[in-house]
């Protein structure tokens, strides 16, 4: 076998994380049909998220929110040349396999849809398609990265047009990273043990039902074939990388509540790599203008004079909602 033989490797970690790096500095827009997808592409979106309903409408409709209909996703894939992402329910391995077979470019395992697994997220290492997942804090982020997520985003509170939760999630993440950087490696290991606890919920519940004390065996698999110690070691490795880099080791976008160019610029000022906009574009009074303005705001986030110009005459942003008045908090799904 020669050293130049063409042996192709697909679905590698480098290809998955690399794909996420290619959307940095960009805006990913939620779209529900081919026409909206074309508006997003023309406005300069780096990718579109194919959905049955935007989050604001998911809230209104209630009921169970599932993966979008296949013909809808296909219609959107056929309409644009930029990458197409689509959402699956948390833990829904079958929906994810279907989207992988369909050929979407990235899967969002999303709290915006109704979770399908009360205990676990998908083991994303098993897939060759890259995944993006939401997080509210460092613990959620590190767990998702260990499970194989190639990209992170804040959860924010989707469909509200209210940026406060996304800001909360960025602050919690960044402050926790600073804390990790001040710790010894031994202390970091303690954090890894704490961060691994949610993987024990199923095992503990089974013990409780069986009238046994809440403890697991050292060699007992608790998530797929992984033991609690395997998970702690895995999370510890990622935390050491976080400590060294001073940031997550994957691309991290803002999502949930971005409604104006100023919101997008705010998230970039807080160090995000880019922005997802859900309901904010197509629930505004002039989606074309809003889409363009948000793309430009992400580009000029540190230039107030340009932002002022961009923010002029873009119509009404989507109607916003206060977080305490909400019936459902999507961000609380999937820890």
């Amino acid at each position, binding site marked *: 076998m020669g050293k130049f033989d063409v042996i192709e490797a697909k679905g590698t970690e480098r290809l998955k994380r690399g794909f996420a790096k290619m959307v940095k*500095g960009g805006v990913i827009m939620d779209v529900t049909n081919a026409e909206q997808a074309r508006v997003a592409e023309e406005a300069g979106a780096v*990718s579109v998220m194919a959905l049955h309903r935007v989050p604001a409408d998911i809230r209104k409709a209630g009921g169970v929110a599932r993966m979008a209909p296949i013909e809808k996703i296909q219609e959107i894939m056929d309409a644009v040349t930029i990458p197409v992402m689509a959402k699956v329910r948390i833990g829904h391995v079958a929906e994810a396999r279907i989207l992988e077979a369909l050929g979407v470019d990235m899967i969002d395992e999303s709290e915006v849809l109704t979770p399908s697994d009360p205990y676990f997220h998908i083991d994303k290492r098993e897939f060759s398609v890259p995944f993006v997942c939401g997080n509210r804090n460092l613990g959620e982020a590190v767990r998702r990265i260990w499970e194989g997520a190639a990209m992170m985003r804040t959860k924010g509170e989707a469909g509200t047009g209210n940026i406060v939760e996304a800001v909360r999630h960025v602050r919690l993440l960044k402050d926790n990273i600073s804390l990790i950087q001040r710790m010894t490696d031994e202390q970091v290991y303690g954090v890894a043990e704490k961060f691994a606890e949610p993987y024990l919920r199923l095992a503990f519940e089974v013990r409780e039902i069986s009238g046994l004390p809440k403890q697991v065996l050292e060699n007992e698999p608790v998530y797929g074939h992984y033991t609690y110690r395997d998970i702690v070691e895995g999370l510890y490795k990622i935390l050491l990388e976080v400590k060294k880099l001073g940031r997550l080791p994957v691309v991290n976008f803002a999502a949930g509540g971005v409604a104006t160019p100023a919101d997008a610029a705010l998230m970039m000022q807080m160090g995000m790599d880019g922005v997802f906009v859900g309901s904010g574009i197509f629930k505004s009074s002039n989606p074309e203008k809003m889409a363009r303005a948000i793309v430009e705001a992400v*580009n000029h986030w540190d230039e107030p004079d340009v932002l002022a110009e961009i923010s002029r005459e873009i119509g009404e942003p989507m109607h916003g909602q206060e977080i305490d008045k909400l019936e459902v908090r999507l961000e609380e799904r999937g820890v």
Partner: protein
Amino acid sequence: MVRVGVIGLQGDVGEHIEASKRALENLGISGEVIWLRKPRQLEGISAIIIPGGESTTISRLMVKNGLLEPVRKLGEEGIPIMGTCAGLIMLSKEVIGATPEQRFLELLDVKVNRNAYGRQVDSFEAPIKLAFSDEPFPGVFIRAPRIVELLSERVKPIAWLGDRVVGVEQGNLIGLEFHPELTEDTRVHEYFLKKAL
């Protein structure tokens, strides 16, 4: 003292900045590498890199930020420019599969087919043969464009996947289908940056 600018509107800009810094260090050249977003930053520039990313977005923002014409002019004047993936599309004379709004630098005498390799599930890694090295280079192809035709004698192949051309050089210009900036290997960046000396 060289001044390298990575067009920093969208895409994997940071990766190219890091790779360029490492390459300069390996070459023992003092220089700075800047995140280039505005036309005035082009002053005194010795080399330009157009990163990977979404070519529709990069194209739109290069026009919007007034970078397209000045960068084209610098390319014509002989300033070294390297484009990887979306950057290759931006450099090319002819692009199959472009959106109607897309504008290009049209400097490099190649015809490329945008997203010819397919979607992300078709992205791949494979060893590449370089014209200037005996050892294989780790090729990373992500929703890559494909060089389908060399349009003049001026353009020379410098990278092959099997017997297919995946990288070209035309005087001061380099266009690659793959992403050397996503690897630890700086041979390609070193080869390019030598043009700036």
